[in-house]
């Protein structure tokens, strides 16, 4: 036996986790805490996946830099002049790396404390109970009783683009902050594209955004996106909607981009182009077929509420099982999968997965969107509280924010909420809690919110539904 194993002898795991991102490490930790012997396979030397290394965390570090620059500029007209910012890219990069490093080190410590075996390398299934990991020192076979796949996703590449040209970036490249291009085109007006636009704009790039759909951040209610759109329209060179990039031609001076669509020029030259048109699941990269796992044509692995694939002892979590590709969805799913693996009777039962765009202003939403409510014919009542009436918002020098809530017309129960404005991403958590607890507008309005805070706007919107608001004058229906 083992004639092909020129390398290490096979090892066995009660639970094998494939992928060390938020979904994978959460599943690994939870399973270990429930008494399982866990082996975690991750291709990179650091854990944390896209989120920690080339996604959520580094982008937020850079967005904070952007916020500092924007706020400093904004307060010049209110009597605070800090002068033109001097940027030391190396230092900014180092600071960003240090955050990532401290977090990944923290994870490595948690792995050790839990006595989880870690194998570094790309893992692929060889059967329904074994996987082969290409490690630095050769192939390592791991047999397992149960497995949880958390192999994530990667940025979508568009084949016709000059993908080898270093001036064509994906989000990972953009976060490297190698240079600050003078003219940057962002292909894709979704959350990732607009966050990177925010960063590069603050660092001095002239930004153009091109989006195929008729609004930026498609999927979010338009009224929530409008304040962001208005603001960036002034800041950026162009926002082309309902426009697609036909081709990109590398020339010496830059990348010549050809457009097709409304109001867009035929072509324009950019120093760099960032492609942020979405992410693609890695389902096709793990030889799932050898384990008999069904993978759909997009690369997603279908699972049930217990995160179970069609193979009963193999589970999958995170980006690889479906949209939205968000770390907080992956971690929640990771826990469910680990608990099911440990024999607990649980399931993915969350009522909502909140979404946040860390743009400036931030946009966040959860639960039912108004678009969905209309499509599904749900009878809802809606209230929108303008932050122009929030003292806290005005004292931040901002007045464009909104807090919107949707409630069941009959019971007043919260169905959905959305916010736009500084810190909207933090504020949405309260709405999620309210939704999960089954709160109605009255409950929210009757909960005392500290003054002056932005969080008050959520209670005010609820009071608008209940008809008890005093911070605004709302004409009663029929008067």
């Amino acid at each position, binding site marked *: 036996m083992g004639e092909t194993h020129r390398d290490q002898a096979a090892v066995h795991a009660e639970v094998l986790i494939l992928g060390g991102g938020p979904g994978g490490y959460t599943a690994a930790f939870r399973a270990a805490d429930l008494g399982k012997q866990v082996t975690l396979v991750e291709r990179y030397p650091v854990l944390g996946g896209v989120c920690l290394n080339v996604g959520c965390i580094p982008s937020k570090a850079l967005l904070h830099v952007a916020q500092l620059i924007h706020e400093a500029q904004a307060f010049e007209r209110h009597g605070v002049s800090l002068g033109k910012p001097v940027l030391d890219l190396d230092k900014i990069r180092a600071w960003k790396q240090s955050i990532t490093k401290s977090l990944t080190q923290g994870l490595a410590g948690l792995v050790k404390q839990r006595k989880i075996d870690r194998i570094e390398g790309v893992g692929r299934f060889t059967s329904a109970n074994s996987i082969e990991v290409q490690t630095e020192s050769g192939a390592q076979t791991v047999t397992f009783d149960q497995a949880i796949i958390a192999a994530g996703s990667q940025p979508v590449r568009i084949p016709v683009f000059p993908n080898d040209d270093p001036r064509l970036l994906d989000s990972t490249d953009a976060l490297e902050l190698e240079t600050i291009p003078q003219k940057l085109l962002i292909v894709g007006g979704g959350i990732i594209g607009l966050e990177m636009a925010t960063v590069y704009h603050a660092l001095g790039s002239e930004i153009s955004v091109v989006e195929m759909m008729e609004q930026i951040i498609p999927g979010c209610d338009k009224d929530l996106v409008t304040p962001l759109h208005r603001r960036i329209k002034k800041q950026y060179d162009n926002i082309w909607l309902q426009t697609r990039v036909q081709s990109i031609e590398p020339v010496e001076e830059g990348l010549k981009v050809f457009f097709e669509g409304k109001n867009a020029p035929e072509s324009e030259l950019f120093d760099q182009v960032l492609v942020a048109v979405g992410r693609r699941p890695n389902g096709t990269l793990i030889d799932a077929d050898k384990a008999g796992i069904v993978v759909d044509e997009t690369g997603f692995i279908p699972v049930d509420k217990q995160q179970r694939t069609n193979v009963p002892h193999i589970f999958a979590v995170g980006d690889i099982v479906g949209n939205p590709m968000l770390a907080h969805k992956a971690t929640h799913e990771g826990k469910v999968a680990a608990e099911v693996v440990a024999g607990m*009777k*649980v*399931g993915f*039962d969350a009522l909502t997965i909140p979404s946040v765009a860390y743009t400036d202003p931030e946009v966040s939403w959860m639960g039912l969107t108004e678009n969905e409510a209309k499509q599904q014919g749900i009878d809802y009542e809606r209230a929108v509280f303008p932050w122009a009436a929030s003292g806290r918002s005005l004292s931040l020098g901002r007045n464009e924010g909104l807090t919107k809530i949707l409630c069941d017309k009959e*019971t007043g129960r919260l169905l959905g909420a959305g916010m736009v404005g500084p810190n909207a991403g933090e504020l949405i958590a309260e709405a999620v809690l309210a939704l999960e607890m*089954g709160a*109605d507008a009255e409950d929210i309005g009757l909960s005392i919110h500290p003054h002056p805070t932005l969080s008050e706007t959520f209670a005010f919107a609820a009071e608008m539904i209940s008809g008890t608001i005093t911070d605004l004058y709302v004409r009663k229906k029929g008067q």
Partner: protein
Amino acid sequence: MALTEIKVPDVGNVADIDVVEVLIQPGERIAVEQTVAVLETDKATMDLPSSAAGTVKEVHIKAGDKVAEGSLIATLESSGGTKPAAEPAAAAAEAEAAPVESEESAPAKASESAAEPTVREPEESLAAPVPQPAPGSSRKAHATPSVRLFARELGVDLSRIESGSGRKGRILKEDVKRYVKQVMSEGAVAAGSGIPPIPAVDFSRFGEVEEQPLNKIRRLTGKNLSRVWLNLPMVTYHDEADITELEAFRTSHNAELADNGVKLTGLVFITKALVAAMQQFPSFNSSLSADGERLIVKRYFHVGIAVDTPNGLVVPVLRDVNRKGIYQLSSELSEKSQLARKGRLMPADMQGGCMTISGLGGIGGTGFTPIVNAPEVAILGVTRARMQPVWDGEAFQPRLMLPLDLTYDHRVIDGAEGARFIEAIKNYLGDIRRLLL
């Protein structure tokens, strides 16, 4: 212009009353006694009459709501005139309701006035363990994540728990536990019977069919009857009472009366005779305790009268029959039958019976086997009286004979006692002067 509130009256300690239909709208002028809504309990559907006249300002309920005593139905801008405290008893103008309940009075008048809704579609039965989808909407169960997790562990579908005991009906852990207990205890009864269900048949293979949903009364009656059928060892005993003299007295009395006064029905005498027999044999006026260890003997004498209505069988109860005279009982019976047919009986009108009389007299038949209205222990069935030749020892005499069918719970009543009970009733009906003794 005063504002008047219409509320749900005392309907006899019933909590969840379904609103089946609301028949008024804001702006509409309504009169006293006009039906404002159709309510339904597990016992009956009832039309809720307005307690005042006026213009409807606001309606506070809608179909599918649950209400209880005191719930606000509507606000009226009243134009004066609230309902007088007590209605003058509808002077039994009702045609004599056939010696023993009725055929012709029943289905005919169902849907005459607008106040009489024809279709009464109950939204949903009580928190029944019967697998049924969640009420109405796609609305999610009102339970927090930890309770949802708990329910999942126990395999409870939260949509089956209609309303929790938490604030605003939030389902709490205790509600999930209670539901599980309830299902388990009911399941035990069902499982205990060990009877395989009747298999489903696709009748459309044999010809055209039409599906008609059962109304709530019918569904609940069916459930109740099955439960009794499975739980009670029942015996039915048949006999005949000679009511020749009684009938002669009754018809001559009614003839003298002409137009005014209370016409007497045979049913009232049967009720009176039944109660006299119950006084003599107290075990017939009893119920078995739930654990089957004790007999609960009642010191009051309330008799249920089964009434056939367009919406199904209902059983109004005549109270304290032992203390009331024939006239009073006659007018009460006539009033309650009328209310029953109009769907206006309140649950309180149907509670507290000690024994039930079920009559098919208006239709025909020579005997049947009624099912005991448990937890009562016996039921008296009555079919149509017939003139029959009765041997008096020397010759056949034409006698009016009334068939009686007594079904009793054999756990409580022995065969001999049953026979003696019927003998007593026969005695009273044979010579009603004995009722005075």
